[in-house]
């Protein structure tokens, strides 16, 4: 089981700040999320500009098409577009 965190507008869209899922690759993560989440939440996650971080490092490629595997201890997080300052 991996922990998937959601921040800011994505947390609100999903309705939880995290979920735990059974997935050892990104394709399995995508299907697990598609099963688990509402259409609206999926739309928010799959939107342009949303980035995935694995162990607090941004995934360089697009999470929607990437086939990487994911370690079960990984900390996965979905981040909407940022703005500080």
């Amino acid at each position, binding site marked *: 089981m991996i922990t998937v*965190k959601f921040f*800011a507008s994505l947390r609100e869209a999903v309705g939880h700040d995290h979920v735990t899922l059974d997935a050892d690759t990104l394709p399995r993560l995508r299907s697990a999320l598609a099963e688990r989440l509402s259409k609206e939440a999926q739309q928010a996650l799959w939107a342009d500009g949303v980035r995935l971080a694995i162990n*607090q490092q941004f995934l360089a490629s697009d999470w929607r098409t990437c086939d990487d595997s994911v370690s079960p201890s990984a900390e996965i997080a979905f*981040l*909407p577009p940022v*703005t*500080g*300052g």
Partner: protein
Amino acid sequence: MHRVIQVQQRDFELAEHYEMIRQHCGEAVGAIAAFVGLVRDHNSHAGDGGTVGSLALEHYPGMTESSICQIVDEAEQRWPLLAVTVIHRVGELQPTDQIVLVVVASAHRSAAFAAAEFIMDYLKTRAIFWKKETSDQGVTWVESTLGDQQRASAWSD
């Protein structure tokens, strides 16, 4: 290089961080540039002049601090700096509240100014924060403006 990076709920004192840097740098420092960002009543992000009631700032503990560290690293590679302090607040903020503090010390004023502005431009577009604005026009998650993005990418030209 002397470096302080903090993400915190509590307010900060410009004078405290200025004096800390001044004492640290001793006789080598010729220029200290400081910047404070504050919550305005008419925030540009509220579109056609909506009044900002309050702002909620959120971050990703750990990853946010690393994202600021990377920005400061890059500033240090570009300019000869003696000290950098970045304090960024999170949580609920009201108009007139301080949001962010950047203090940069260098031997020369051009480096201090450039690095402070560079750090602010990158904080706006690359540091991991999210801002939710509550105004009389409703609640919105703020995104960095096109102007912010252009200012940040101008540094890599």
